[in-house]
């Protein structure tokens, strides 16, 4: 199955490479536009020295963690993004149902957006900027946690994209509210969770667990404590939270497909 996935993705990438100029323009475009986000944050810090006690470098770590995950999710889950909407509008999801493969697998392997590496590159630059100015006492456990958080974050954002796509089975178009959780969510997660009021904190911890893409892990790495009493060690639960959330998204997807089959396009 994995080799078939690679084969299909490779076919898509070769397809994209037919338009080389567009590829590079987009890659650089993502690099520049996503870079503006962090520029805004640095401008903010020319007026203040810290935000809720967090320095610009600490914020940079939060930003980089959530952004890198988001860029990976956008790259891998591209099939569930705008192309899926088009698929729904043109009725070409029928073509998925006549192939002897799981529909989720087919949509997943129908697209791969390499050009999102522009965002990854920009976020990685911020990560280097942050880490070189922070004195983190790296231990083996912290390195493992760091990597696990990036994986968990990617899975969390992926699940949100899947949920957005699934809504298309009823609405044909992905509602804008999904962007509020993907793009909006990762903007919000660029700042310490502690600055938000209680119900926003609850939503991002328990309903749409975007906080798990960076906040608890940053607490552990920076030896900080949460002013509202959130235990930093909860960071280790990130992969589990991500998998449960993704499982819910996957079930929702199946429900959507069944609903498509009985209502038609």
């Amino acid at each position, binding site marked *: 199955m994995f080799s078939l996935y690679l084969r*299909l993705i490779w076919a898509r990438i070769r397809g994209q490479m037919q338009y080389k100029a567009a590829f590079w323009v987009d890659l650089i475009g993502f690099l520049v536009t996503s870079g503006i986000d962090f520029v805004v944050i640095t401008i903010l810090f020319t007026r203040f020295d810290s935000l809720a006690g967090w320095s610009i470098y600490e914020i940079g770590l939060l930003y980089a963690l959530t952004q890198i995950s988001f860029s990976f999710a956008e790259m891998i889950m591209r099939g569930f993004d705008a192309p899926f909407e088009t698929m729904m509008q043109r009725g070409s999801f029928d073509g998925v149902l006549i192939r002897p493969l799981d529909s989720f697998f087919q949509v997943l392997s129908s697209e791969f957006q390499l050009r999102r590496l522009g965002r990854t590159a920009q976020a990685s630059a911020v990560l280097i900027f942050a880490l070189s100015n922070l004195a983190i006492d790296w231990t083996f456990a912290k390195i493992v946690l760091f990597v696990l958080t990036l994986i968990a974050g990617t899975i969390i954002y992926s699940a949100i994209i899947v949920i957005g796509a699934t809504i298309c089975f009823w609405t044909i178009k992905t509602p804008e509210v999904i962007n509020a959780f993907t793009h909006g969510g990762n903007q919000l997660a660029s700042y310490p969770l502690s600055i938000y009021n209680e119900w926003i904190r609850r939503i991002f911890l328990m309903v749409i667990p975007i906080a798990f893409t960076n906040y608890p892990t940053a607490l552990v790495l920076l030896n900080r404590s949460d002013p509202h009493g959130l235990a930093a060690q909860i960071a280790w639960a990130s992969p589990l939270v991500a998998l449960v959330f993704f499982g819910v998204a996957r079930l929702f997807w199946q429900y959507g497909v069944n609903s498509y089959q009985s209502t038609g396009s």
Partner: protein
Amino acid sequence: MALIEVENVAKTFRVAKRYEGRFGAIRSLLAREYREVHAVDKVSFQLEAGEMVGYIGPNGAGKSTTIKMLTGILVPSSGRIMVAGRVPYQERVAHVRKIGVVFGQRSQLWWDLPTIESFELLRHIYKIPFERWRENLDTFSDILELGPFLHTPVRQLSLGQRMRADLAAALLHDPNILFLDEPTIGLDVVAKDRIRQFLQRINKERGTTVILTTHDLEDIERLCQRVILIDHGTLIYDGALEELRNRFGRERTVVIDIENGLPENAHDWRPIGVNSVRREGRRFWFSFDRHATTAAALIGEIAQRYQIRDLTVEEPKIETIVRQIYESGSVTV
């Protein structure tokens, strides 16, 4: 047991009512009023392996909906569908492994890649043994003349080439049943002919059951022994094409060229049983009801009045018959 069994199958869509105006979208979301559309209504038929069947009907008759239920894309609202012993939507993956589907209006190929790469990917998707795949590809390339454009990206193919490539793609995994939704739409005469010949060969040589929907009745005349006619979601005819002609095509036409010297009242004369007479120079068309008179009797009668130089008897065109059925909305023409 028949290969395909369709029993009392119905498909009802619930269509949300849309509101016009400024807040129409919001009202549509909140009010959620539905109206029911009966796309397919209690349709039953059976198909045996190796048959080649035309599934016809006017736009919106329910053809595509039926095909989608047979292929497992849609779940019937009621009734029972069995294809090769399986309920299509329940065992979708196992079911689609054994069928081929071609949508005339939508390619199933990888748009940006050379045609051959779609065939390669399908080999992996269907896990076709390499030898068998090679053999099929050679055969199809040969008959459909795919060679010249195997390395051209699909998006650059002409409609006819794309259709041929799609047909080959649908058959690489040796399906038992081939579903074709408007396979000749938009094609020129030569391209249509090539595709018809190919389908005939596949049906004959491989015993592949073929079900096709079409608006081009020549497809049906050339390919199908059997035709199923559907209108407003209900089945109105199922049987041989000849029978359809005999039962509903009562009107035949005698075309006569006469020698010079027309009698005075040539315009008014109308023999018994003749519905209409048309004249152009020395050529006459006498359209008559087969049940009211015979061609022989009519010709005899005409010969008594005119000197016949040449004559032919025209069978009713299947297209005319079907148009009459569509217009009247029933089989009792």
